[in-house]
């Protein structure tokens, strides 16, 4: 079903790029080329001569890329923005997901639409992954802080670990605060008191 379209994926983020590549390959596109290196981009694109270019919106080289499309001597064929201007839903979805794509002029839209949809959904999945990772990281940091607060209580008040935790939790409940906030205050206060 791929019809032999060659797809160039430009993304500094190697993990995300390979997630997209995998998705495109699973969908039957075997000509997927990843570019991480922005130097000599014009020549690379001229050599690869792709049908579709997918690029992430964080990439500071988008202006360069678009300029290249205007200058016909750099690329052999004119290139246009991915979707019909009338298809504002796809445009919004792409910009929301943080991706942009360009297609060679004259390509049938229905052949390219699935590629764009794939890129959008993979970009979304990736940002979900990143958010989850961020959550896990901050959870870990929270746990460390709570452990330190427990340690302070155990040492200064001679409590067991469980008693220290219960005290933190009770205090949080009484003050309608989160345990992590109480723990943080305690760690800071203890630092200020030079303990």
């Amino acid at each position: 079903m791929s019809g032999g379209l060659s797809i160039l994926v430009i993304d500094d983020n190697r993990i995300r790029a390979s997630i997209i590549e995998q998705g495109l390959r699973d969908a039957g596109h075997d000509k997927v080329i990843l570019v991480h290196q922005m130097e000599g981009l014009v020549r690379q694109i001229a050599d690869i001569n792709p049908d579709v270019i997918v690029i992430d919106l964080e990439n500071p080289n988008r202006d360069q890329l678009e300029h290249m499309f205007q200058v016909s001597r750099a690329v052999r064929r004119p290139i246009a923005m991915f979707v019909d201007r009338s298809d504002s839903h796809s445009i919004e979805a792409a910009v929301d997901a943080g991706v942009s794509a360009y297609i060679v002029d004259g390509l049938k839209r229905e052949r390219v639409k699935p590629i764009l949809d794939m890129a959008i959904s993979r970009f979304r999945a990736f940002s979900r992954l990143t958010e989850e990772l961020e959550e896990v990281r901050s959870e870990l940091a929270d746990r460390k802080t709570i452990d330190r607060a427990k340690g302070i209580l155990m040492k200064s008040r001679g409590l067991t670990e469980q008693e220290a935790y219960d005290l933190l939790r009770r205090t949080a409940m009484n003050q309608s605060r989160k345990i992590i906030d109480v723990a943080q205050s305690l760690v800071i206060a203890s630092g200020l008191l030079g303990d």
Partner: protein
Amino acid sequence: METNLRPVIAGFIPLLDSAVVVAAAELGFAEQEGVALKLIRETSWANIRDRISVGHFDVAHMLAPMPIASSLNLTSLAVPMLAPMLLGLGGNAITVSTALWSDMARVGADPSGDPVTTGKALADVIKQRHADDAPPLHFGVVHPFSGHAYELRYWLAAAGIDPDKDVEITVLAPQMMADALKGGQLDGYCVGEPWNTAAVDAGTGRIATYKQAIWPDSPEKVLGVTQKWAEANPETLAALMRAFSAAADWCADPVNIEELATILARPDILACPAEICLAALSGRIRLGPKTERAVPGFLTFSGGEKAAPLPAHGVWFYEQMVRWRQAERSEAALQQVEAIFSPDAYLAAVGLERSAEEAVIKMFDSERN
């Protein structure tokens, strides 16, 4: 308190002339006008264009020609836009590699940034390189629809250099210019500050001439809004322009330069040393390692009348688009361009009258009405 503020989301590119937008958000000018201004830093003008056209941003810090290019359907995701206020005048310079500068100096380039002799010297160098079968020189600009592109092209063409045949002009992000010069991918570029000073400081570049010499007191960045948003939110837009006007007056006061440089240098804004912001803000420009020059109006922020766009400004940019074959000439487009750069909304917002004087566009080599 907060619930009464009208939220406005503004996109900006980390450049010195984002100062007005940044100061309005950071120093309370927006709040005083009842606007909760949230800034989002962007990495490319393409993103600014895309995100304003899909409605992520209400307004944006934009290259002056961008609202024209968008309204005339010359870019992707084109929507009708307006440039109701100028956010900065001047601020750009043309920097060449130290190697190219020494060639230019040998054939009479003026060390103080005069566009006539530096242009002529460059033309002589190019002629010699052509005779020697040397590869063409490469110049960088930040965007095809930018003051930078048109200033560079104007300066080259005035010296008899064909910007499309005698040199290669490519587009590169501002913060990458100095590195590209150092790495030899570029021989010169036209960019806003602080990215000229960055190359001079690094010892890899020399400022040949600057925007204030090529087209004195000319608009560089504008407040960009979609026509749709402007029509739906006239009061918010007026309040925002009053806030920007007050912020611009604050930025223009020499007393505030140090504080402004400190804010702009922050990691979440330009992320650069505060010292390199000071050159353009104070108008004391280091053209080369040993040449510092006071350039009055090198970069100007201004509230009041000077922040009003003029139809003549828009027409100049449009004429450059036609000149360099980006746009077709048409009477309808010309009228559209004059409306995009209309000063009326801004003047009404800040309570000023339209000046009776005819606008004069004064270039370094010509003057016309």
